[in-house]
């Protein structure tokens, strides 16, 4: 962090795509946090851009933020390496950069904040193996191909699967992180495979789609992993699933803004902040569902957060 940067700060939020619900919710936590910080006199302005899913446009936006000389940039990367150069440019200009969710490769950032995708996959696989008693035929549902998050989660699951030779992955498919395509893909797989003991689903909407597919084809539900998508959690309860879920908390956005401001204020922040994965199981699913009404129907019920939690994470 260089230059004459004094509160109140201008913060740029370079989103890759604002339309999906997860992004809208994340943006909600960011604006809420900014409002807080404005009250505290720390933030003056928030500039929001939406690259409409185009990494090239995102580069252009970040370049414009550099040109406009914002004090901090909070970013979800549209590609794990496409932004490297423009971000290191921004870093050279002394702008505080906090990158969360989809991370960039370069280390020339103020902080990277994320949960561990490999751990996500590993934990999910472990739970499923446990459910099946270490033996059975499973289907793996992946997110879209060519995306690091999807790839990392799958990689994280592999060692667990390797360690349990009696778990057979009968087939594996990729789908958008959306209910309809996931349901469509799972339905086809259901017809092709009569015996399925479990589903290792590596994304929230994917799980909801799978459950719906089992339901509509009149098949008995099997143990399934997933994410904190409200629809999945509701189905979990409605169908009495054997389920397990974790999440990519939306408040990573708020936390990133908080971190950026802390850094601008001269606090040292860790270069990499690993946010522990909250886990939802039979014991906690009710508590999440109790808050469901506060979240959109196709949204994600994230765990609670507060300043204390942020400070604790920063103190790592």
């Amino acid at each position, binding site marked *: 962090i260089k230059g004459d940067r004094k509160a109140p700060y201008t913060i740029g939020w370079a989103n890759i795509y604002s339309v999906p619900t997860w992004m809208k919710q994340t943006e909600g936590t960011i604006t809420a946090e900014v409002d807080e910080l404005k009250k505290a006199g720390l933030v003056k302005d928030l500039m929001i*851009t939406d690259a409409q899913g185009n990494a090239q446009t995102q580069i252009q936006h970040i370049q414009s933020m550099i040109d406009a000389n914002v004090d901090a940039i909070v970013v979800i990367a549209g590609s794990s390496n496409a932004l*490297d150069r423009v971000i290191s440019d921004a870093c050279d200009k002394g702008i505080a950069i906090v990158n969360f969710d989809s991370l960039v490769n370069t280390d020339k950032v103020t902080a990277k904040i994320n949960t561990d995708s490999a751990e996500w996959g590993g934990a999910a696989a472990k739970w499923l193996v446990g459910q099946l008693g270490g033996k059975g035929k499973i289907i793996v549902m992946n997110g879209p191909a060519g995306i690091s998050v999807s790839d990392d989660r799958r990689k994280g699951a592999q060692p667990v699967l390797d360690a349990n030779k009696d778990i057979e992955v009968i087939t594996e498919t990729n789908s958008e992180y959306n209910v309809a395509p996931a349901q469509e893909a799972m339905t086809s797989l259901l017809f092709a495979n009569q015996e399925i003991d479990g589903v290792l689903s590596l994304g929230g909407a994917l799980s909801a789609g799978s459950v719906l597919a089992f339901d509509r084809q009149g098949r008995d539900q099997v143990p399934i992993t997933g994410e904190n998508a409200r629809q999945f959690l509701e189905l979990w309860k409605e169908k009495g699933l054997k389920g397990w879920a974790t999440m990519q908390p939306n408040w990573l956005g708020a936390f990133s803004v908080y971190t950026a401001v802390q850094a601008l204020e001269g606090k040292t922040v860790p270069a990499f902040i690993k946010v522990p994965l909250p886990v939802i199981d039979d014991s906690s699913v009710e508590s999440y569902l109790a808050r469901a009404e506060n979240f959109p129907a196709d949204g994600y019920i994230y765990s609670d957060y507060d300043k204390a939690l942020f400070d604790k994470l920063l103190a790592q």
Partner: protein
Amino acid sequence: MTLATSSSLYRAVQRRRNRGLLGLYIVVTAFLILYAVLFPGILSVGGFSKFTQNWFPLALVAMAQALLMLNGGITLAIGPMVSLGAVIAATTMGGPLGTFGGFLAVAAAGLCIGAATGAIVALLRLPAIIVTLAGSFIISGVALIMLPRPGGFVPEWLSTLLAGHTPMAFLLLVLILGLWKIFLATPLGLGIYAAGDNPVGAYRSGVPIDRVKIVSFALSGLLAALAGLFVAAQTGSGDPIIGTPFTLNSIAAAVLGGVGFLGGKGTMRGAVCGSLLLSVMINVMFFLGFPPVAQYVAQGLIIVGAVAVPELLGRWRTNR
């Protein structure tokens, strides 16, 4: 009146082609001026370089698309071709081929895949739109197999050369436009217009329309692959899906630039101008502080307006 001197025929033809584009030129200039007012830094070498770098790949794919549309075709495989170009660059340049070999590999892949697509369209007489749709799946599949997740390697010096603080991208664009001009001054190049406009007539006049089609697909593939190479250099690595949004944007840029679907109508400079409008619009909206909602809405309105306003003005003028 015949021309006074025969040497000015070429220039006269060129000048006439500019005439229909006046409306677009005015719109683009207005946006550029607005941008310069909002962000004077664009007038510095660094600002100019960065801006043109971000515009460059879109300009290339707009050219790649316009080339085919002028010939009466279209391609939906632009995006995957960009991705593949980036992937080949990022996977070969670190290997035994070296940087130059990697460059050649990208160019060869673009040319060959383009020519193959063109051959299927021309010789089997299949509709280009659906052949290239199928092609887009095949090409993106290849890109995913070569590089399942973002990564690879592009030498730092290449990135600095192409996407550093020099207006290299702009110079390259000027160079490519110059080459296009030269190509248009060859019988084969002009054949693209003739065959796109009136294929039967062109065939009867002795224009080898199948060869023209294959060549235009090949060149279009080359341009798209080079756009991919540039993206790889700009980002320092490859990404198997980075090109996806380019497909629709290339069509939008070309049509904004006055290139018609039925072939033969439009100019390359129009398409490049269309891409410039799409690109500068993003920056202008940022500096005007538009929130995302307004960005979407304004983008829709600007695109429609850029086509409709010159049209309405023209009609108003003729009706008076």
